[in-house]
Structures are given as structure tokens and as C-alpha cells.
């Protein structure tokens, strides 16, 4: 990061809470910052945001931090991911009971995949195929061969499966069920549930560290993040959160992202309108970053310079500068932004 950009990023440490909902407030206040970002950034990445109530995907340029396109993709888009080669963006269009495949160049929906009923979230095998889809309304995980558009297996899990994580070697799939309050560890060779770990109420998201040695599972109603050793299934730590002036009930962890070096985890805290910055080695919460309203999902740029957050109730995306841990901009997107992914190239 250039010195000039560093200087520009020095923002007020704590914003008054009423600013949380004011979209574009930061961008409007800091026009110089955006320019600095544009100048300092080496390469631009495309950021894709699914808008649950907008039935669309907003595309953001990570350099200019502007929305470049908004594309209609189907009804109730939620989970969103991208192929390792960056050539396909996959979107759960829940009310169409399908996964839409978006061409990032033409921004056209190329085809729709057989996801099983009511797909909410999914994860791609690190090789790019298959896709593991949580069918929230049907208590199962659908394993989908993307090339052939063929269902390979359906794995029965608990009530309302949602969070889906895959180990870096692709061998273990973690699926959380929101009403059963468990994370199911599924063998991706046999499609059998190998083990179940009880976590707190309404587990929403599962994320492995890059070395595969830890699994972070957020519990929205329980208000915690459970860190599990996927080998022994031992619970290493239950991370709790406390924010002065925010009701305990409003702290509802959902999305989790961990830096590749395994040192830092970011946890979206829902209606607390904060992203927690957690030391992923000591599990201490280092900081709470004020973002938009009802923050759910997170995505890094591939260089981990920026982290994007979807804020469902303020209809915007907050941009966090990862090295400085500052919120640098909020970007207006479509109705009720849900998921976010950044293209790898």
C-alpha cells in the first residue's frame, strides 16, 4: 500500500451509529479516498453481489468501487460462488429451485443447474466440480456434477441445512443444519455423514482455514462461533462477542472469512451491524467494524486487500480495507443483498 493511500485511509475510529444506515455516506464524505484507491490498486477484480429481493446480481469493480452492472438472474438469489477459472458465476436462485450459471463476460445466464428444491447456500469442490448444495426446505445436501448437470448424490442431513464448507483438500464437506443445531461432516468420496458436532442455536455458516486444521461454524441465534478440529471433532473454542451499547440478542454471527495465513477471521454479526475482527490463533476479538445494517456474508479480494460485506437491510455493500481494518466505503446495490463473491482473476 502506498503512503498516500495509507494517509487517505485514516478515518474516524468510531462512526456515530446513525451513520450505519446512511448509504454512500462514507463515499460522499471521502471522494479523495476513492481516487486514492483507484490509483493504488494494481489489478481490478469483479465483485458479484446477490440481491435477494432485487432478483439480481450487482457487479462491482474492486478498483473504482462502483457498480458497473446489475443483472437479472432469477427469483430470490442467495448463495453465490465462482469457478476457480473465473469463467462461471454460480447463484442459488432459491424460488426457481435452481442454480443459475452466469457468464462473467457477457453477464448472461448461460444455463440453470438442477440444484434440488430451495437451494440456499453451496460450496464448490476446490477442483471446480462438483457443487455441494444445501436444500434448506428439504433436509438434504445435493451433490451436483456441474459439467453434466446431473445429481450425483443426495445426503440426508438435519432440519434446514444451510452453511456449507469444504476442506482445502476437498475430502470433507461441512454442512450446518439450522434447526438441528449441528454441523455434519460428510465424506465427499462416499457421501456418508461421518460425524456430527453439536454447536449453538441456528448454525449458519461453516468455513475451513486454508491449512484445513480448523473449522469455524457461526451460530446466529446462539451468538457464537465454534472452532472445531475437523480431525478429532474436538471443540477448540467457542468465540463470544460483546459490543458496548448493542443488545446481546442483536449479535447474530453469520458469514465467516479467514485470511489465508490463518491469522485473522472476520465474522459478520447480522443486526449488530458490525464485522468482528478475530485473532484466529488466540480467538480474541480485536475489533468491531461498523458496517451497514444486517450484515450477513463476506468476501475477500484474492489479494486479501479488501473485504466486501453484504448489508441486507441498508441495501448496500461495505468495503473494508483489510490491512488497516477500516471501513472505506459503502456502495448502494440492489434489494436485500445476501451473498458476495469476488472473481479470482
Amino acid at each position: 500500500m502506498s503512503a498516500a493511500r495509507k494517509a487517505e485511509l485514516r478515518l474516524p475510529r468510531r462512526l456515530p451509529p446513525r451513520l450505519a444506515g446512511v448509504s454512500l455516506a462514507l463515499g460522499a464524505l471521502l471522494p479523495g479516498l476513492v481516487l486514492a484507491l483507484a490509483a493504488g490498486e494494481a489489478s481490478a477484480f469483479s465483485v458479484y453481489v446477490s440481491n435477494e429481493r432485487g432478483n439480481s446480481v450487482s457487479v462491482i469493480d474492486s478498483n473504482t468501487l462502483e457498480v458497473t452492472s446489475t443483472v437479472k438472474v432469477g427469483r430470490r438469489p442467495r448463495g453465490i460462488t465462482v469457478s476457480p477459472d473465473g469463467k462461471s458465476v454460480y447463484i442459488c436462485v432459491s424460488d426457481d429451485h435452481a442454480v443459475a450459471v452466469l457468464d462473467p463476460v457477457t453477464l448472461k445466464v448461460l444455463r440453470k443447474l438442477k440444484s434440488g428444491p430451495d437451494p440456499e447456500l453451496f460450496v464448490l469442490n476446490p477442483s471446480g466440480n462438483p457443487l455441494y448444495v444445501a436444500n434448506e426446505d428439504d433436509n438434504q445436501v445435493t451433490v451436483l456434477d456441474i459439467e453434466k448437470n446431473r445429481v450425483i448424490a443426495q445426503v440426508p442431513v438435519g432440519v434446514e441445512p444451510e452453511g456449507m464448507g469444504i476442506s482445502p483438500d476437498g475430502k470433507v464437506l461441512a454442512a450446518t443444519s439450522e434447526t438441528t443445531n449441528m454441523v455434519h461432516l460428510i465424506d465427499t468420496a462416499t457421501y456418508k455423514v461421518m460425524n456430527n458436532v453439536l454447536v449453538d442455536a441456528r448454525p449458519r455458516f461453516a468455513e475451513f482455514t486454508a491449512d484445513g486444521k480448523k473449522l469455524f461454524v457461526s451460530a446466529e441465534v446462539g451468538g457464537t462461533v465454534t472452532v472445531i478440529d475437523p480431525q478429532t471433532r474436538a471443540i477448540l473454542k467457542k468465540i463470544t462477542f460483546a459490543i458496548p451499547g448493542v443488545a446481546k440478542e442483536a449479535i447474530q454471527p453469520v458469514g465467516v472469512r479467514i485470511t489465508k495465513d490463518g491469522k485473522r477471521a472476520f465474522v459478520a454479526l447480522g443486526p449488530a451491524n458490525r464485522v468482528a475482527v478475530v485473532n484466529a490463533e488466540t480467538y480474541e476479538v480485536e475489533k468491531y467494524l461498523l458496517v451497514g445494517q444486517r450484515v450477513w456474508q463476506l468476501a475477500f479480494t484474492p489479494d486479501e486487500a479488501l473485504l466486501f460485506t453484504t448489508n441486507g437491510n441498508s441495501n448496500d455493500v461495505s468495503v473494508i480495507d483489510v490491512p488497516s481494518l477500516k471501513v472505506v466505503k459503502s456502495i448502494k446495490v440492489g434489494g436485500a443483498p445476501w451473498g458476495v463473491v469476488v472473481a479470482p482473476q
Partner: protein
Amino acid sequence: MRRITRVLAVGAVLAAMGSLGVTTGAAQAPAAAPPPPLAIHIGLLTRAVEPPPLYDLKAPPDDEGLAGARLAIKDNVTTGAFIGQDFALDEAVLQSDEDPVAAALALAKGGAGFIAVNLPAADLLKVADALKPSGTVVFNIGATDDALRGADCRANLFHVAPSRAMLADALVQYLATRKWTRLFLVTGPAAEDALYAAALKHAAAKFGVKVVAEKPWTFGPLARQRGDTPTQADALVFTRGTEYDVLVVADEAGDFGDYIPYHTEQPKLVAGTQALVAATWHPAQDAWGSAQLQSRFLRLASRTMTQVDYQAWLAVRLVGEAATRLKSADAARYAALFRGPDFSIAAFKGVPVSFRAWDQQLRQPLLIAQPSAIVSVSPQDGYLHRATVLDTLGTDAPETACKMAP
């Protein structure tokens, strides 16, 4: 008594799951053969609904409560399959004059350690007292009487249904938030209506709004009249000469409350037991993932979920959630867990719900709803409480009249 006992077998599901191990801590060695599942029976005691007339817009469904409990049993069975637990619902539907005590004892004798009861307060108390020796945990899923949470409280009785105090507080908090502070209270002839009116007056004093006028309703069940019946002139002029913001009706039987909107002298809003109401559940509710629950229920019952269904669902889920934690069928341990500080459950209300230690009432957010939309959710923003803002609804610890005999 028409008694149906349905045991939902889970063998097929179990087989599909592969290994059944679950761990909350260290790894477990794989067992040679899985032990037989822990069987947990939950009873549901309700009274048969009178058959409706030829056409009744608001006829209660004949499986009200039962359908909610059946859905929760399915949810429990799915969860239990991973940890070697099986759940069954034992349903007992009383015919018109049938004695609830005999039916409750039969359920307990049949192995139900937990019974969800959808009966009026007097019957509920008889059941709770009869079940005291057996240690059966009783869930009240229907009666809103504050006395059940006060002087008539029982150690084996847990209230999933909200109290009238909670319903009134939730509604009045919303009116106070909107600064609609002058209420005109119209109370029906039934004893229940007087209890609801008393709860409203208590809530008004609690949240700083005024009951500026009060009248009894004396014109009969006009909400049930035919559309071509001439409207009674005295009912139309009934609200004349009163200055108020909101007319609040106390009509638990639904006889006249729906008549009042659009029949007031001035164009005024109506709330209370009809029009704008406080409720545990509503067909328009779809926040906090509850679209999932609504959809599952609709598929199972071919109708929308009522409050009693939701309360039945929640009672059965409370047992399921506690079973996951306790790994036991011993009802006494459940009761201790429920009334202790460490138990809560996700109930599609956005925040965990739990039991109050002082009267065993489930603390929960309440929806503020009009017939086809959610208007708000109470507790309202800005209300504060030393422990949890949910305890601004209903009787708080310092005011309780409950002296729980062990």
C-alpha cells in the same frame, strides 16, 4: 376418547445416515453396533372442535395444535436420527364433555414424560395437579390466563402460550411508540373479555398511555351477522362524542371486534383482540427464516399455521432441543433445565426464547399484526430492561404472585 398413537419410525433414516456418532468434545471410538435409540414420548391433549356450520370463514381447523406438534415431531426425529434418539407423539383428543384428567393420566401411563395441553385454565390446572406425582412436564399451549402464571402457578407447568399481560403489553408498547396515547376501551360481556381489558389497563399504566373512555359492548355478536342484515343504528353511534386515538376491543370470542372497524363515528384505528393484534405467530410472518417453517407446515397440513399450532410446535421442539443437550428421557431433568438460566431455543423470532424462572412463562417477542400483514414486533426499540428487553412484556420478577411449591 378418540386416541391415536403415532410412532414415527426412523429406521430408514438411521440407515441412510451412516455413522451415528455425535460429539460435543473429544473424539469417540466407533461403536461396534449402535445401541437402540432413546425413545421419547410427547403427549398432546386437546378437545375436539365443534363441527363448523355450513360456511364459517374463521372456523378453527379440526387439527389445530395437532398439526403443529406433528411437524415438530418430524423435526425432532430428523435431528434425533443423528444422535440415537427417537420421538413419538401420543395424541389424545377429548370429545365434548370428556374428563381431561383420565386422558392425561392415560398418556402418562403410556410413557409420555411431557404433555402439551390445549385446554382452558380450569382443565389445565386439574391436569397439572393430577400429573404431579408422575413427574410429567406439562406445557400450556393454549391458556392465556395471568392467574396461571401468578397465584395458580405450578412447578410442573410451563407456559408456551403468552399471558394476557404479555399480549396487552406488546400491543400497548407499539401504540405508545407511535404516540397513540388515548385509548377508547370497548369490553365484551364474557369473563375473558374483562380479564383482557384488565391486562390492557395495566399495560396502559405501565407504558404511559391513557384509557380515556370505556364502554361495554351490548349489541350482541354483530361481527357474525349476515352482510344483508340491517346495521343497528345504536351500534353505529356508539362511539360518538369520545375523543381518542385508537379504539381497543376486548373480545376474545371474536363476536363483535371485527364489526367495529369502519363503523366508528370518526375514521379511527382499531386494535386489541381484533384488527391490530399481538400474536405469537401469523401467516404473514416470514422473517428470521420462518418462511421455512411456514412452508414445511403448509406442506404437512395443507393450511396456514395458527398460533396454537406454533405453540404446539414450540412445546415439542423444546423437548427435542433439551433431549439433544441432556441425552436422557428423564422428565425431571428437563424441568430443571427449562427453569435454569442456561437453556434457550431458536423459535423463528430472531432472538433465542427461554423460560422465566419466576413463573415458567416463555419469554418471547410478539408480532404486532393486522389481518394480512406484520406491522411490527414487540418489544419495541427503545425499551430497556436490566436483564432482557423481552421481560418488558408480561409480569416481571418483582411483580410476580407465583409462589412455586416444589
